[in-house]
């Protein structure tokens, strides 16, 4: 089984789906000859030609809107937003159009489109190359939001997203692209959208998180094990709609729940996770639900001191788990 980086897994998924189905095509800024600013579409232009790996004008609403039109015709576009921060001009197309197409047409039309976007900080990206934007879209029925944490999950979930008959936002943590490597099968496997995944079994504290933070929790858990604190880790993988069953099960398992996101705290995904637990697990809890998140400032600053202060890391996680274990 080959070892792949997170971004190689993304590229592999794109290549496999383009080979499998000629309706699949990629569009976005710099995705063609250059192969994307991060290299996610590297080599695809040479293999599949100009129209299946289409360099678009620099205009995000058109990237989404043209993708929607092509998808309505029956194509399977995979649109790339160069950075999640730059998705904002396309929000009208995504929320007013893609999300509502099936519903508003009473199941007559649908939009089988995937929109990929690199998100997240810790790369000196400052305010506009570091954001987590999932909560902007996470109360829009009709959309699915997938945020894989490992190369294995990235490949299987991206393939599932491309095959899905509804619009999927697929957010890839840009720091994970080259940081994370793992065994990724060459086979044609897909993973279910809408299903969370237990990344570590444990009995003392439950941590529910997603994206790059999963790795910070895994690192912290390893260290805490030496102290006798056994951490249970649930990776949401799909942050909208949430896998409520898995969340409830994970919360009940230990009765002590820590929720983590790299996003700003107020209004983030984990607030909704907390509500699910509060509604369903009152008598199973042994401690108040805890949230660990970015501060409520507009975005991550550039200066390394402030960036580090904002960014999630294993130390912050370790401290929060220990506190909860001792409650």
């Amino acid at each position, binding site marked *: 089984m080959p070892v792949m980086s997170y971004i190689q897994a993304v590229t592999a998924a794109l290549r496999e789906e383009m080979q499998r189905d000629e309706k699949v095509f990629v569009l976005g800024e710099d995705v063609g000859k250059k192969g994307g600013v991060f290299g996610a579409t590297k080599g695809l232009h040479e293999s599949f030609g100009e129209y299946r790996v289409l360099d678009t004008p620099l205009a995000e609403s*058109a990237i989404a*809107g043209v993708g929607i039109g092509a998808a*309505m015709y*029956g194509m399977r576009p995979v649109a790339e937003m160069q950075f999640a921060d730059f998705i904002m001009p396309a929000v009208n197309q995504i929320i007013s159009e893609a999300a509502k197409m099936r*519903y508003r047409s009473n199941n007559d039309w649908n939009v089988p489109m995937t929109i990929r976007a690199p998100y997240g900080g810790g790369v000196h990206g400052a305010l506009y190359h570091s954001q987590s934007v999932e909560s902007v879209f996470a109360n829009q029925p009709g959309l699915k939001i997938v945020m894989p944490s490992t190369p294995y999950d990235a490949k299987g979930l991206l393939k599932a997203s491309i095959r899905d008959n509804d619009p999927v936002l697929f957010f890839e943590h840009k720091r994970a692209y080259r940081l994370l490597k793992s065994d990724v099968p060459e086979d044609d496997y897909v993973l279910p959208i809408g299903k969370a995944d237990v990344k570590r079994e444990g009995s003392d504290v439950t941590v529910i998180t997603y994206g790059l933070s999963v790795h910070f929790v895994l690192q912290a858990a390893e260290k805490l094990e030496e102290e006798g604190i056994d951490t249970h880790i649930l990776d949401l993988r799909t942050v909208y709609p949430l896998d409520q069953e898995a969340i409830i099960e994970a919360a009940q398992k230990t009765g002590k729940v820590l929720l983590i996101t790299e996003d700003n705290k107020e209004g983030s995904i984990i607030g909704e996770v907390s509500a699910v637990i509060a509604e369903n697990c009152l008598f199973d809890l042994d401690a108040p639900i805890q949230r660990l998140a970015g501060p409520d400032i507009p975005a991550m600053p550039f200066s390394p001191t402030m960036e580090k202060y904002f960014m999630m890391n294993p130390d912050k996680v370790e401290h929060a788990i220990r506190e909860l274990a001792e409650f």
Partner: protein
Amino acid sequence: MAKNRHQSLGLTDEQAVDIYKHMLLARKIDERMWLLNRAGKIPFVISCQGQEASQVGASFALDRNEDYVAPYYRDMGVVLAFGMTAKELMLSAFAKAEDPNSGGRQMPSHFGQKKNRILSQSSPVTTQLPHAVGVALAARMEKKNFASFVTLGEGSSNQGDFHEGLNFAGVHKLPVITMVENNKYAISVPLEKQVASSNVSDRAQSYGMPGVTVDGNDPLAVYEEVKHARERAMNGEGPTLIEALSYRFTAHSSDDDDRQYRESAEVEDAKKKDAIISYAAYLQESGILTDDMEEEIRTDIDATVNEATDYAENAAYPEPESALKYVYEE
């Protein structure tokens, strides 16, 4: 109008009369909807009146079996020409379960019908333009021989999606025909406060495509321009922007009062150029529409509108819980 222009454009006498029938049907359905609204039977109307000639003339120049259309909310003439029926439009006005546009989910005139290749539209304006470009991109990729046709109002030509979409189509020379139905008002704001250029069609220059302005009250003139645009599209010569000049006869919608912002004299003046009247006169002068035929057409249309209204009024509403369906694939 000179006689027999339709023949030199390649339209048969029957087709020329058929254009008239579609224009008149759109007008009569629309008028009935206003009556129903004022009688408290339907909550909302947004009107095609004054723009039927542009809509039907353009549609007849398209391949109505192959081309895709992305209409906007005034385009009753387009959707009728593309196969939607009076009954279906009335079902939408009454928000009944059988409405093919949305099953009673959207306001009336938010058209969409896959079997007739009418792309579903929303209320935020101009979002449909990039969709039409996307359909044309798919035609290019799939090597299919059809065009996509998208319409919007002149106010909507200020939206980013207009410029982003046309530029995309121009860069890739896609088979998209964009028709701006310039009815002079964006709700209350007149053309001169909306568009800085002399004509909306001037905007085409930036996007590497021809831009033409045409008399939208002349269905044959619009037919000619759209036909030419379609030929260019099919020859791989790329997109065209057409501006059809007309006038909005009604208030913006049933919830608007246009006396707040325009003089009734201006409206009356515009109505003197009503294409329903001038085109009927053309057909009569050309000897292909007699008084008897006109009488028969009007009787048929009245019967169609009555039947559609009765059917829709008596049709069932959607089940309340059906509101939960079709968020995702089921």
